[in-house]
Protein backbone atom coordinates (compact mmCIF):
# COMPACT_ATOMS: atom_id res chain seq x y z
CA UNK A 1 0.00 0.00 0.00
CA UNK A 2 2.83 2.41 0.86
CA UNK A 3 4.57 1.72 -2.43
CA UNK A 4 1.35 2.32 -4.33
CA UNK A 5 0.68 5.53 -2.40
CA UNK A 6 4.14 6.90 -3.19
CA UNK A 7 3.82 5.91 -6.84
CA UNK A 8 0.44 7.57 -7.13
CA UNK A 9 1.72 10.71 -5.38
CA UNK A 10 4.64 10.95 -7.80
CA UNK A 11 2.24 10.57 -10.73
CA UNK A 12 0.31 13.61 -9.53
CA UNK A 13 3.33 15.89 -9.86
CA UNK A 14 3.47 16.11 -13.69
CA UNK A 15 -0.29 16.66 -13.75
CA UNK A 16 0.11 19.49 -11.27
CA UNK A 17 2.88 21.11 -13.31
CA UNK A 18 0.98 20.72 -16.57
CA UNK A 19 -2.10 22.21 -14.93
CA UNK A 20 -0.13 25.25 -13.78
CA UNK A 21 1.30 25.66 -17.26
CA UNK A 22 -2.22 25.52 -18.70
CA UNK A 23 -3.37 28.26 -16.30
CA UNK A 24 -0.34 30.36 -17.19
CA UNK A 25 -1.03 30.06 -20.91
CA UNK A 26 -4.74 30.71 -20.48
CA UNK A 27 -4.22 34.00 -18.65
CA UNK A 28 -1.79 35.10 -21.38
CA UNK A 29 -4.51 34.46 -23.96
CA UNK A 30 -6.44 37.53 -22.83
CA UNK A 31 -6.78 39.74 -25.92
CA UNK A 32 -4.38 42.64 -25.46
CA UNK A 33 -3.25 41.78 -21.96
CA UNK A 34 -4.79 41.68 -18.49
CA UNK A 35 -3.56 45.18 -17.73
CA UNK A 36 -5.30 46.67 -20.76
CA UNK A 37 -8.44 44.65 -20.10
CA UNK A 38 -8.56 45.84 -16.49
CA UNK A 39 -7.97 49.52 -17.06
CA UNK A 40 -10.21 49.81 -20.12
CA UNK A 41 -9.77 51.94 -23.25
CA UNK A 42 -9.41 55.25 -21.44
CA UNK A 43 -6.25 54.34 -19.52
CA UNK A 44 -3.14 56.44 -19.99
CA UNK A 45 0.01 54.81 -21.34
CA UNK A 46 1.72 55.54 -18.01
CA UNK A 47 -0.93 53.80 -15.94
CA UNK A 48 -0.79 50.82 -18.29
CA UNK A 49 2.98 50.60 -18.05
CA UNK A 50 2.82 50.86 -14.25
CA UNK A 51 0.29 48.06 -13.95
CA UNK A 52 2.20 45.94 -16.47
CA UNK A 53 5.38 46.15 -14.44
CA UNK A 54 3.42 45.53 -11.21
CA UNK A 55 2.03 42.35 -12.77
CA UNK A 56 5.40 41.47 -14.27
CA UNK A 57 3.92 41.54 -17.77
CA UNK A 58 6.86 43.52 -19.11
CA UNK A 59 9.28 40.68 -18.43
CA UNK A 60 10.15 38.06 -21.08
CA UNK A 61 7.64 35.22 -21.17
CA UNK A 62 10.16 32.67 -19.91
CA UNK A 63 11.00 34.78 -16.84
CA UNK A 64 7.29 35.31 -16.19
CA UNK A 65 6.76 31.56 -16.30
CA UNK A 66 9.60 30.87 -13.85
CA UNK A 67 8.34 33.57 -11.47
CA UNK A 68 4.82 32.21 -11.71
CA UNK A 69 5.90 28.64 -10.92
CA UNK A 70 8.16 29.57 -8.00
CA UNK A 71 5.45 31.83 -6.53
CA UNK A 72 2.72 29.23 -6.78
CA UNK A 73 4.87 26.36 -5.55
CA UNK A 74 5.93 28.39 -2.51
CA UNK A 75 2.26 28.95 -1.73
CA UNK A 76 1.94 32.52 -3.01
CA UNK A 77 -1.04 32.83 -5.34
CA UNK A 78 -0.69 36.57 -5.74
CA UNK A 79 -2.89 39.43 -4.65
CA UNK A 80 -6.31 40.45 -5.79
CA UNK A 81 -6.06 43.33 -8.27
CA UNK A 82 -9.30 44.79 -6.96
CA UNK A 83 -8.47 45.17 -3.26
CA UNK A 84 -4.88 44.01 -2.78
CA UNK A 85 -5.83 41.15 -0.45
CA UNK A 86 -3.86 37.94 -0.86
CA UNK A 87 -5.79 35.44 -2.98
CA UNK A 88 -5.42 32.68 -0.42
CA UNK A 89 -6.88 34.90 2.30
CA UNK A 90 -9.81 35.87 0.08
CA UNK A 91 -10.53 32.20 -0.57
CA UNK A 92 -10.10 31.24 3.09
CA UNK A 93 -12.58 33.94 4.13
CA UNK A 94 -15.47 32.48 2.13
CA UNK A 95 -14.48 28.82 2.08
CA UNK A 96 -16.43 27.80 5.23
CA UNK A 97 -19.68 28.89 3.57
CA UNK A 98 -19.01 26.81 0.48
CA UNK A 99 -17.83 23.85 2.53
CA UNK A 100 -20.96 23.94 4.68
CA UNK A 101 -23.09 23.90 1.54
CA UNK A 102 -21.21 21.14 -0.27
CA UNK A 103 -20.96 18.86 2.76
CA UNK A 104 -24.70 19.21 3.34
CA UNK A 105 -25.27 18.43 -0.34
CA UNK A 106 -23.08 15.33 -0.24
CA UNK A 107 -24.94 14.06 2.84
CA UNK A 108 -28.28 14.55 1.08
CA UNK A 109 -27.02 13.11 -2.19
CA UNK A 110 -25.55 9.94 -0.71
CA UNK A 111 -28.24 9.61 1.97
CA UNK A 112 -31.04 9.59 -0.59
CA UNK A 113 -29.19 8.25 -3.63
CA UNK A 114 -27.82 5.03 -2.14
CA UNK A 115 -31.17 3.63 -0.87
CA UNK A 116 -33.00 4.77 -4.02
CA UNK A 117 -30.41 3.13 -6.24
CA UNK A 118 -30.54 -0.13 -4.28
CA UNK A 119 -34.33 -0.09 -4.40
CA UNK A 120 -34.32 0.47 -8.16
CA UNK A 121 -31.84 -2.36 -8.70
CA UNK A 122 -33.83 -4.80 -6.56
CA UNK A 123 -37.08 -3.97 -8.37
CA UNK A 124 -35.54 -3.88 -11.80
CA UNK A 125 -38.01 -3.16 -14.63
CA UNK A 126 -40.83 -2.66 -12.17
CA UNK A 127 -42.32 0.71 -11.26
CA UNK A 128 -39.71 1.71 -8.63
CA UNK A 129 -37.05 1.29 -11.29
CA UNK A 130 -38.92 3.40 -13.85
CA UNK A 131 -39.79 6.13 -11.38
CA UNK A 132 -36.25 6.48 -10.04
CA UNK A 133 -34.78 6.32 -13.54
CA UNK A 134 -36.95 9.12 -14.85
CA UNK A 135 -36.53 11.19 -11.69
CA UNK A 136 -32.76 10.81 -11.63
CA UNK A 137 -32.50 11.66 -15.31
CA UNK A 138 -34.63 14.73 -14.66
CA UNK A 139 -32.32 15.64 -11.77
CA UNK A 140 -29.33 15.34 -14.08
CA UNK A 141 -31.00 17.53 -16.68
CA UNK A 142 -31.43 20.52 -14.38
CA UNK A 143 -28.69 23.07 -14.67
CA UNK A 144 -28.05 23.95 -11.02
CA UNK A 145 -29.20 27.53 -11.44
CA UNK A 146 -32.47 26.52 -13.10
CA UNK A 147 -33.49 24.16 -10.30
CA UNK A 148 -32.29 26.71 -7.76
CA UNK A 149 -34.38 29.49 -9.23
CA UNK A 150 -37.47 27.29 -9.50
CA UNK A 151 -37.07 26.24 -5.86
CA UNK A 152 -36.58 29.85 -4.84
CA UNK A 153 -39.76 30.83 -6.70
CA UNK A 154 -41.82 27.98 -5.29
CA UNK A 155 -40.68 27.63 -1.68
CA UNK A 156 -39.31 31.05 -0.78
CA UNK A 157 -41.42 33.47 -2.81
CA UNK A 158 -44.80 31.73 -3.35
CA UNK A 159 -45.01 29.61 -0.20
CA UNK A 160 -42.76 31.80 1.94
CA UNK A 161 -41.35 28.82 3.86
CA UNK A 162 -37.75 29.94 3.54
CA UNK A 163 -35.98 33.29 3.46
CA UNK A 164 -35.50 34.72 -0.04
CA UNK A 165 -32.02 35.98 0.77
CA UNK A 166 -30.04 32.80 1.46
CA UNK A 167 -28.19 33.19 4.71
CA UNK A 168 -27.04 36.11 6.69
CA UNK A 169 -23.55 36.15 8.10
CA UNK A 170 -24.95 37.03 11.51
CA UNK A 171 -28.18 35.88 13.14
CA UNK A 172 -29.41 32.98 15.17
CA UNK A 173 -28.48 29.37 14.28
CA UNK A 174 -32.10 28.53 13.36
CA UNK A 175 -32.13 31.29 10.78
CA UNK A 176 -28.85 29.99 9.37
CA UNK A 177 -30.19 26.45 9.07
CA UNK A 178 -33.28 27.74 7.34
CA UNK A 179 -31.10 29.69 4.97
CA UNK A 180 -28.99 26.62 4.23
CA UNK A 181 -31.94 24.32 3.57
CA UNK A 182 -32.93 25.38 0.03
CA UNK A 183 -29.43 25.71 -1.45
CA UNK A 184 -28.36 22.44 0.16
CA UNK A 185 -31.39 20.59 -1.20
CA UNK A 186 -30.88 22.13 -4.61
CA UNK A 187 -27.33 20.79 -4.79
CA UNK A 188 -28.19 17.60 -2.91
CA UNK A 189 -31.10 16.57 -5.14
CA UNK A 190 -29.02 16.96 -8.30
CA UNK A 191 -26.37 14.79 -6.71
CA UNK A 192 -29.04 12.30 -5.65
CA UNK A 193 -29.92 11.77 -9.31
CA UNK A 194 -26.29 11.02 -10.01
CA UNK A 195 -25.69 8.69 -7.06
CA UNK A 196 -28.95 6.84 -7.71
CA UNK A 197 -27.98 6.01 -11.28
CA UNK A 198 -24.51 4.84 -10.38
CA UNK A 199 -25.74 2.79 -7.43
CA UNK A 200 -28.40 1.14 -9.57
CA UNK A 201 -26.05 0.04 -12.32
CA UNK A 202 -23.34 -1.00 -9.87
CA UNK A 203 -25.78 -3.06 -7.80
CA UNK A 204 -27.20 -4.67 -10.94
CA UNK A 205 -23.70 -5.74 -11.90
CA UNK A 206 -23.02 -7.28 -8.50
CA UNK A 207 -26.43 -8.91 -8.10
CA UNK A 208 -25.78 -10.98 -11.20
CA UNK A 209 -22.61 -12.54 -9.74
CA UNK A 210 -22.37 -16.19 -8.75
CA UNK A 211 -21.52 -15.56 -5.11
CA UNK A 212 -24.80 -13.71 -4.63
CA UNK A 213 -26.69 -16.70 -6.04
CA UNK A 214 -24.74 -18.95 -3.70
CA UNK A 215 -25.50 -16.73 -0.73
CA UNK A 216 -29.16 -16.73 -1.67
CA UNK A 217 -29.20 -20.51 -2.05
CA UNK A 218 -27.61 -20.76 1.37
CA UNK A 219 -30.75 -19.10 2.71
CA UNK A 220 -29.25 -15.80 3.76
CA UNK A 221 -31.81 -13.21 4.78
CA UNK A 222 -32.32 -10.54 2.08
CA UNK A 223 -31.19 -7.70 4.36
CA UNK A 224 -27.88 -9.38 5.13
CA UNK A 225 -27.47 -10.43 1.52
CA UNK A 226 -27.80 -6.87 0.31
CA UNK A 227 -25.91 -5.02 3.00
CA UNK A 228 -23.08 -7.45 3.68
CA UNK A 229 -22.53 -9.12 0.33
CA UNK A 230 -23.90 -7.02 -2.50
CA UNK A 231 -23.57 -3.42 -1.37
CA UNK A 232 -20.03 -3.85 -0.14
CA UNK A 233 -18.76 -4.83 -3.55
CA UNK A 234 -21.01 -2.40 -5.35
CA UNK A 235 -19.57 0.45 -3.30
CA UNK A 236 -16.23 0.44 -5.12
CA UNK A 237 -17.45 1.86 -8.43
CA UNK A 238 -19.87 4.13 -6.56
CA UNK A 239 -16.96 5.58 -4.63
CA UNK A 240 -14.98 6.30 -7.78
CA UNK A 241 -17.85 7.96 -9.54
CA UNK A 242 -18.73 10.09 -6.52
CA UNK A 243 -15.09 11.19 -6.42
CA UNK A 244 -15.25 12.13 -10.09
CA UNK A 245 -18.43 14.08 -9.38
CA UNK A 246 -16.47 16.50 -7.20
CA UNK A 247 -15.64 18.87 -10.09
CA UNK A 248 -19.29 19.08 -11.12
CA UNK A 249 -20.26 19.67 -7.52
CA UNK A 250 -17.96 22.70 -7.35
CA UNK A 251 -19.44 24.13 -10.55
CA UNK A 252 -22.98 23.56 -9.31
CA UNK A 253 -22.27 25.10 -5.92
CA UNK A 254 -20.97 28.24 -7.64
CA UNK A 255 -24.26 28.58 -9.52
CA UNK A 256 -26.30 27.78 -6.42
CA UNK A 257 -24.53 30.40 -4.36
CA UNK A 258 -25.18 33.03 -7.00
CA UNK A 259 -28.89 32.16 -7.20
CA UNK A 260 -29.41 32.13 -3.44
CA UNK A 261 -27.16 35.13 -2.92
CA UNK A 262 -25.07 33.19 -0.41
CA UNK A 263 -21.56 34.24 0.47
CA UNK A 264 -19.00 31.75 -0.83
CA UNK A 265 -16.69 30.91 -3.71
CA UNK A 266 -19.45 31.52 -6.27
CA UNK A 267 -19.92 35.14 -5.33
CA UNK A 268 -16.16 35.59 -5.14
CA UNK A 269 -15.86 34.38 -8.75
CA UNK A 270 -18.73 36.60 -9.87
CA UNK A 271 -17.10 39.61 -8.24
CA UNK A 272 -13.73 38.77 -9.83
CA UNK A 273 -15.40 38.47 -13.26
CA UNK A 274 -17.16 41.81 -12.90
CA UNK A 275 -14.03 43.68 -11.81
CA UNK A 276 -11.83 41.78 -14.30
CA UNK A 277 -9.64 40.68 -11.44
CA UNK A 278 -7.43 38.27 -13.38
CA UNK A 279 -5.02 37.40 -10.58
CA UNK A 280 -7.95 36.40 -8.36
CA UNK A 281 -9.45 34.32 -11.18
CA UNK A 282 -6.10 32.69 -11.87
CA UNK A 283 -5.62 31.95 -8.16
CA UNK A 284 -9.13 30.50 -7.84
CA UNK A 285 -8.55 28.28 -10.82
CA UNK A 286 -5.35 26.91 -9.28
CA UNK A 287 -7.03 26.35 -5.91
CA UNK A 288 -9.87 24.40 -7.51
CA UNK A 289 -7.62 22.36 -9.77
CA UNK A 290 -5.46 21.40 -6.79
CA UNK A 291 -8.63 20.38 -4.92
CA UNK A 292 -9.73 18.19 -7.82
CA UNK A 293 -6.29 16.61 -8.16
CA UNK A 294 -6.21 15.86 -4.42
CA UNK A 295 -9.72 14.38 -4.47
CA UNK A 296 -8.81 12.21 -7.47
CA UNK A 297 -5.72 11.06 -5.60
CA UNK A 298 -7.72 10.21 -2.50
CA UNK A 299 -10.31 8.40 -4.62
CA UNK A 300 -7.60 6.30 -6.24
CA UNK A 301 -6.04 5.49 -2.88
CA UNK A 302 -9.43 4.58 -1.40
CA UNK A 303 -10.06 2.39 -4.41
CA UNK A 304 -6.76 0.57 -3.89
CA UNK A 305 -7.51 0.19 -0.20
CA UNK A 306 -10.91 -1.38 -0.85
CA UNK A 307 -9.77 -3.48 -3.80
CA UNK A 308 -6.11 -4.60 -3.37
CA UNK A 309 -5.97 -5.89 -6.97
CA UNK A 310 -5.71 -2.31 -8.22
CA UNK A 311 -2.22 -2.00 -6.76
CA UNK A 312 -0.75 -4.62 -9.03
CA UNK A 313 -2.14 -3.36 -12.31
Amino acid at each position, binding site marked *: MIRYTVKRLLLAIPTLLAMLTAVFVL*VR*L*VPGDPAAAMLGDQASAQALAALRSQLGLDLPLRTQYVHFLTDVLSGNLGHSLANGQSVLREVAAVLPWTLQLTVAAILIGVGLGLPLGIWAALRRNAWPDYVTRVLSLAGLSFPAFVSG*ILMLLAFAIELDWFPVIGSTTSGNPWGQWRGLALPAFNLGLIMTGYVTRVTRSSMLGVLGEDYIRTARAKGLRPYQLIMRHALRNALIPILTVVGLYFGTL*IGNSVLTEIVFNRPGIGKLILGALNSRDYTLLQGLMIVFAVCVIVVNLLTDLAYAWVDPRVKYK
Partner: protein
Amino acid sequence: MSTVATSSPTPAPAARIDTLWRTLLGNRIAWIGLILLAIVVLAAAFAPWIAPHDPIEQHIAYRLDPPSAQYWLGTDSYGRDVLSRLIYGARISLLVGFLAVLIAMVVGSSLGILAGYLGGWVDQLVMGLVDVLLSFPALLLGLMVAAMLGASLQNLVVAIAITEIAPFVRVARAPTIALKQRDFIEAGRALGFGPIRLMAVHILPNMVSEVIVLGSMWMATAIRTEASLSFIGLGVPPPIATWGGMIRDGFDNILDSWWLIVFPCLAILVTVLALNLLGDALRDALDPKLRGEKR
Protein backbone atom coordinates in the same frame (compact mmCIF):
# COMPACT_ATOMS: atom_id res chain seq x y z
CA MET B 1 -8.46 -4.11 -51.20
CA SER B 2 -11.51 -3.29 -49.17
CA THR B 3 -12.20 -7.01 -48.73
CA VAL B 4 -9.61 -6.89 -45.98
CA ALA B 5 -11.87 -4.73 -43.86
CA THR B 6 -15.14 -6.51 -44.61
CA SER B 7 -13.74 -9.95 -43.94
CA SER B 8 -12.84 -8.92 -40.41
CA PRO B 9 -14.88 -10.45 -37.59
CA THR B 10 -16.28 -7.09 -36.47
CA PRO B 11 -19.67 -6.38 -38.02
CA ALA B 12 -19.64 -3.72 -40.71
CA PRO B 13 -20.08 -0.27 -39.14
CA ALA B 14 -23.11 0.47 -41.30
CA ALA B 15 -24.85 -2.59 -39.86
CA ARG B 16 -24.09 -1.49 -36.31
CA ILE B 17 -25.53 1.98 -36.81
CA ASP B 18 -28.52 0.31 -38.40
CA THR B 19 -29.02 -1.88 -35.29
CA LEU B 20 -28.63 1.18 -33.13
CA TRP B 21 -31.29 2.99 -35.10
CA ARG B 22 -33.71 0.04 -35.03
CA THR B 23 -33.31 -0.57 -31.30
CA LEU B 24 -33.83 3.13 -30.77
CA LEU B 25 -37.11 3.20 -32.68
CA GLY B 26 -38.39 0.28 -30.63
CA ASN B 27 -37.79 2.12 -27.38
CA ARG B 28 -40.60 4.23 -25.92
CA ILE B 29 -38.32 6.47 -23.85
CA ALA B 30 -36.25 7.21 -26.92
CA TRP B 31 -39.38 8.24 -28.79
CA ILE B 32 -40.29 10.76 -26.10
CA GLY B 33 -36.79 12.22 -26.36
CA LEU B 34 -36.91 12.30 -30.17
CA ILE B 35 -40.30 14.04 -30.27
CA LEU B 36 -39.34 16.66 -27.67
CA LEU B 37 -36.08 17.32 -29.47
CA ALA B 38 -37.84 17.54 -32.83
CA ILE B 39 -40.17 20.24 -31.44
CA VAL B 40 -37.22 22.33 -30.24
CA VAL B 41 -35.28 21.85 -33.49
CA LEU B 42 -38.30 22.78 -35.63
CA ALA B 43 -38.97 25.85 -33.50
CA ALA B 44 -35.36 26.93 -33.94
CA ALA B 45 -35.31 26.22 -37.67
CA PHE B 46 -38.55 28.05 -38.47
CA ALA B 47 -38.22 30.78 -35.84
CA PRO B 48 -38.90 33.72 -38.21
CA TRP B 49 -42.19 32.12 -39.33
CA ILE B 50 -43.35 30.85 -35.93
CA ALA B 51 -42.42 33.72 -33.63
CA PRO B 52 -45.40 36.06 -33.23
CA HIS B 53 -43.22 39.15 -32.66
CA ASP B 54 -39.72 40.42 -33.29
CA PRO B 55 -37.47 39.04 -30.51
CA ILE B 56 -35.44 42.26 -30.19
CA GLU B 57 -38.01 44.99 -30.89
CA GLN B 58 -38.89 46.90 -27.71
CA HIS B 59 -42.41 48.09 -26.82
CA ILE B 60 -41.93 50.34 -23.83
CA ALA B 61 -45.70 50.68 -23.41
CA TYR B 62 -45.97 46.95 -22.74
CA ARG B 63 -43.17 46.55 -20.17
CA LEU B 64 -43.43 43.51 -17.88
CA ASP B 65 -46.90 42.55 -19.12
CA PRO B 66 -48.10 39.20 -17.74
CA PRO B 67 -49.13 36.51 -20.24
CA SER B 68 -52.09 37.71 -22.32
CA ALA B 69 -53.81 37.05 -25.66
CA GLN B 70 -51.44 39.42 -27.41
CA TYR B 71 -48.26 38.26 -25.62
CA TRP B 72 -48.85 34.59 -24.81
CA LEU B 73 -45.94 34.32 -22.41
CA GLY B 74 -45.82 37.97 -21.35
CA THR B 75 -43.16 40.61 -22.02
CA ASP B 76 -39.83 41.44 -20.39
CA SER B 77 -38.57 44.66 -18.84
CA TYR B 78 -37.93 46.17 -22.30
CA GLY B 79 -41.38 45.17 -23.52
CA ARG B 80 -39.98 42.36 -25.71
CA ASP B 81 -42.15 39.31 -26.37
CA VAL B 82 -40.99 36.40 -24.16
CA LEU B 83 -42.38 33.69 -26.47
CA SER B 84 -40.55 35.07 -29.50
CA ARG B 85 -37.31 35.40 -27.55
CA LEU B 86 -37.77 31.83 -26.34
CA ILE B 87 -38.17 30.56 -29.91
CA TYR B 88 -35.13 32.48 -31.15
CA GLY B 89 -33.18 31.47 -28.05
CA ALA B 90 -33.51 27.82 -29.12
CA ARG B 91 -31.26 28.68 -32.09
CA ILE B 92 -28.38 29.77 -29.85
CA SER B 93 -28.73 26.83 -27.46
CA LEU B 94 -28.83 24.23 -30.23
CA LEU B 95 -26.14 25.92 -32.31
CA VAL B 96 -23.68 26.34 -29.45
CA GLY B 97 -24.45 22.87 -28.05
CA PHE B 98 -24.08 21.18 -31.42
CA LEU B 99 -20.95 22.99 -32.56
CA ALA B 100 -19.21 22.59 -29.21
CA VAL B 101 -19.89 18.85 -29.14
CA LEU B 102 -18.90 18.48 -32.78
CA ILE B 103 -15.52 20.09 -32.13
CA ALA B 104 -14.98 18.09 -28.93
CA MET B 105 -15.99 14.91 -30.79
CA VAL B 106 -13.67 15.42 -33.78
CA VAL B 107 -10.69 16.67 -31.77
CA GLY B 108 -11.21 14.24 -28.89
CA SER B 109 -11.67 11.07 -30.92
CA SER B 110 -8.83 11.95 -33.31
CA LEU B 111 -6.50 12.43 -30.36
CA GLY B 112 -7.80 9.22 -28.79
CA ILE B 113 -7.21 7.14 -31.94
CA LEU B 114 -3.81 8.72 -32.46
CA ALA B 115 -2.80 8.03 -28.85
CA GLY B 116 -4.09 4.47 -28.93
CA TYR B 117 -2.60 3.60 -32.31
CA LEU B 118 0.80 5.22 -32.00
CA GLY B 119 1.32 4.57 -28.28
CA GLY B 120 4.62 5.65 -26.73
CA TRP B 121 5.23 9.33 -26.11
CA VAL B 122 2.22 10.43 -28.18
CA ASP B 123 0.00 8.37 -25.90
CA GLN B 124 1.65 9.79 -22.80
CA LEU B 125 1.31 13.35 -24.08
CA VAL B 126 -2.35 12.96 -24.97
CA MET B 127 -3.25 11.25 -21.72
CA GLY B 128 -1.36 13.94 -19.84
CA LEU B 129 -3.51 16.52 -21.61
CA VAL B 130 -6.62 14.59 -20.60
CA ASP B 131 -5.47 14.56 -16.97
CA VAL B 132 -4.98 18.32 -17.05
CA LEU B 133 -8.39 18.92 -18.64
CA LEU B 134 -10.02 16.69 -16.04
CA SER B 135 -8.30 18.51 -13.19
CA PHE B 136 -10.40 21.63 -13.75
CA PRO B 137 -14.05 21.65 -12.72
CA ALA B 138 -15.82 21.75 -16.11
CA LEU B 139 -17.98 24.80 -15.49
CA LEU B 140 -15.08 26.79 -14.08
CA LEU B 141 -12.83 25.86 -16.99
CA GLY B 142 -15.52 27.05 -19.42
CA LEU B 143 -16.02 30.15 -17.32
CA MET B 144 -12.33 31.00 -17.29
CA VAL B 145 -11.81 30.40 -21.01
CA ALA B 146 -14.93 32.42 -21.89
CA ALA B 147 -13.86 35.22 -19.52
CA MET B 148 -10.31 35.31 -20.89
CA LEU B 149 -11.30 35.20 -24.57
CA GLY B 150 -14.23 37.63 -24.21
CA ALA B 151 -17.94 37.01 -24.72
CA SER B 152 -18.89 36.00 -28.26
CA LEU B 153 -20.52 33.06 -29.99
CA GLN B 154 -17.25 31.57 -31.29
CA ASN B 155 -15.45 31.93 -27.98
CA LEU B 156 -18.36 30.33 -26.15
CA VAL B 157 -18.26 27.36 -28.53
CA VAL B 158 -14.50 26.99 -28.07
CA ALA B 159 -14.74 27.32 -24.28
CA ILE B 160 -17.43 24.64 -24.01
CA ALA B 161 -15.70 22.36 -26.52
CA ILE B 162 -12.51 22.40 -24.44
CA THR B 163 -14.40 21.20 -21.37
CA GLU B 164 -15.75 18.18 -23.32
CA ILE B 165 -12.71 16.85 -25.18
CA ALA B 166 -11.51 14.43 -22.48
CA PRO B 167 -14.38 11.88 -22.56
CA PHE B 168 -14.07 11.52 -26.37
CA VAL B 169 -10.33 10.87 -26.11
CA ARG B 170 -11.03 8.09 -23.66
CA VAL B 171 -13.85 6.48 -25.62
CA ALA B 172 -11.74 6.38 -28.79
CA ARG B 173 -8.43 5.33 -27.25
CA ALA B 174 -9.45 2.11 -25.50
CA PRO B 175 -10.98 0.33 -28.53
CA THR B 176 -8.10 1.51 -30.73
CA ILE B 177 -5.60 -0.26 -28.51
CA ALA B 178 -7.65 -3.45 -28.78
CA LEU B 179 -8.23 -3.11 -32.52
CA LYS B 180 -4.66 -2.45 -33.58
CA GLN B 181 -3.65 -5.98 -32.62
CA ARG B 182 -6.40 -7.55 -34.68
CA ASP B 183 -5.64 -9.49 -37.85
CA PHE B 184 -7.36 -7.12 -40.24
CA ILE B 185 -5.17 -4.22 -39.18
CA GLU B 186 -2.10 -6.45 -39.39
CA ALA B 187 -3.22 -7.48 -42.87
CA GLY B 188 -3.70 -3.86 -43.88
CA ARG B 189 -0.24 -3.06 -42.66
CA ALA B 190 1.15 -6.01 -44.64
CA LEU B 191 -0.56 -4.66 -47.75
CA GLY B 192 1.33 -1.43 -47.27
CA PHE B 193 -1.48 0.83 -46.01
CA GLY B 194 -0.20 3.92 -44.25
CA PRO B 195 -1.06 4.59 -40.62
CA ILE B 196 -3.41 7.44 -41.53
CA ARG B 197 -5.43 5.23 -43.85
CA LEU B 198 -5.54 2.47 -41.25
CA MET B 199 -6.71 4.85 -38.55
CA ALA B 200 -9.26 6.73 -40.63
CA VAL B 201 -10.69 3.95 -42.79
CA HIS B 202 -10.27 0.82 -40.68
CA ILE B 203 -10.26 1.86 -37.03
CA LEU B 204 -12.47 4.93 -36.88
CA PRO B 205 -15.64 3.30 -38.32
CA ASN B 206 -15.56 0.69 -35.56
CA MET B 207 -16.26 3.26 -32.87
CA VAL B 208 -18.57 5.67 -34.66
CA SER B 209 -21.65 4.45 -32.82
CA GLU B 210 -20.02 4.79 -29.38
CA VAL B 211 -18.86 8.30 -30.25
CA ILE B 212 -22.35 9.28 -31.44
CA VAL B 213 -23.96 8.01 -28.23
CA LEU B 214 -21.48 9.92 -26.13
CA GLY B 215 -22.09 12.94 -28.35
CA SER B 216 -25.82 13.02 -27.65
CA MET B 217 -25.20 12.92 -23.90
CA TRP B 218 -22.49 15.57 -23.99
CA MET B 219 -24.60 17.82 -26.18
CA ALA B 220 -27.04 17.92 -23.26
CA THR B 221 -24.19 18.98 -21.00
CA ALA B 222 -22.99 21.55 -23.55
CA ILE B 223 -26.45 23.14 -23.65
CA ARG B 224 -26.49 23.19 -19.85
CA THR B 225 -23.07 24.81 -19.75
CA GLU B 226 -24.09 27.40 -22.35
CA ALA B 227 -27.15 28.31 -20.30
CA SER B 228 -25.08 28.49 -17.10
CA LEU B 229 -22.42 30.72 -18.69
CA SER B 230 -25.11 32.98 -20.16
CA PHE B 231 -26.70 33.18 -16.73
CA ILE B 232 -23.38 34.27 -15.24
CA GLY B 233 -23.08 36.87 -17.99
CA LEU B 234 -20.50 35.22 -20.23
CA GLY B 235 -22.87 34.14 -23.00
CA VAL B 236 -23.62 35.55 -26.42
CA PRO B 237 -23.91 39.29 -25.73
CA PRO B 238 -27.31 41.04 -25.69
CA PRO B 239 -29.66 41.92 -27.31
CA ILE B 240 -29.53 38.44 -28.89
CA ALA B 241 -31.99 36.19 -27.07
CA THR B 242 -30.50 33.24 -25.16
CA TRP B 243 -32.32 31.18 -22.56
CA GLY B 244 -29.67 31.65 -19.90
CA GLY B 245 -29.51 35.37 -20.63
CA MET B 246 -33.33 35.66 -20.37
CA ILE B 247 -33.20 34.08 -16.93
CA ARG B 248 -30.38 36.41 -15.94
CA ASP B 249 -32.41 39.45 -17.03
CA GLY B 250 -35.59 38.15 -15.41
CA PHE B 251 -33.83 37.44 -12.13
CA ASP B 252 -34.01 41.13 -11.17
CA ASN B 253 -37.80 40.98 -11.35
CA ILE B 254 -38.23 37.53 -9.82
CA LEU B 255 -40.49 38.79 -7.04
CA ASP B 256 -43.33 39.94 -9.29
CA SER B 257 -42.70 38.74 -12.87
CA TRP B 258 -42.43 34.95 -12.68
CA TRP B 259 -43.07 34.48 -16.42
CA LEU B 260 -39.70 35.97 -17.26
CA ILE B 261 -38.00 33.05 -15.53
CA VAL B 262 -40.27 30.04 -15.54
CA PHE B 263 -40.60 29.70 -19.33
CA PRO B 264 -36.90 29.84 -20.23
CA CYS B 265 -36.23 27.44 -17.34
CA LEU B 266 -38.74 25.00 -18.82
CA ALA B 267 -37.24 25.40 -22.29
CA ILE B 268 -33.76 24.49 -21.02
CA LEU B 269 -35.13 21.57 -19.06
CA VAL B 270 -37.13 20.10 -21.94
CA THR B 271 -34.19 20.33 -24.34
CA VAL B 272 -31.63 18.86 -21.95
CA LEU B 273 -34.02 16.14 -20.79
CA ALA B 274 -34.84 15.21 -24.41
CA LEU B 275 -31.16 14.79 -25.25
CA ASN B 276 -30.53 12.83 -22.06
CA LEU B 277 -33.46 10.49 -22.73
CA LEU B 278 -32.17 9.93 -26.23
CA GLY B 279 -28.61 9.38 -25.08
CA ASP B 280 -29.75 6.99 -22.37
CA ALA B 281 -31.78 4.92 -24.80
CA LEU B 282 -28.93 4.92 -27.30
CA ARG B 283 -26.50 3.74 -24.66
CA ASP B 284 -28.80 0.91 -23.65
CA ALA B 285 -29.13 -0.04 -27.31
CA LEU B 286 -25.35 -0.26 -27.59
CA ASP B 287 -24.79 -2.18 -24.38
CA PRO B 288 -24.73 -5.86 -25.30
CA LYS B 289 -25.73 -6.84 -21.76
CA LEU B 290 -29.00 -4.96 -22.07
CA ARG B 291 -29.69 -5.63 -25.73
CA GLY B 292 -32.79 -7.57 -26.64
CA GLU B 293 -34.32 -6.90 -23.28
CA LYS B 294 -37.95 -5.74 -23.13
CA ARG B 295 -38.43 -2.26 -21.83
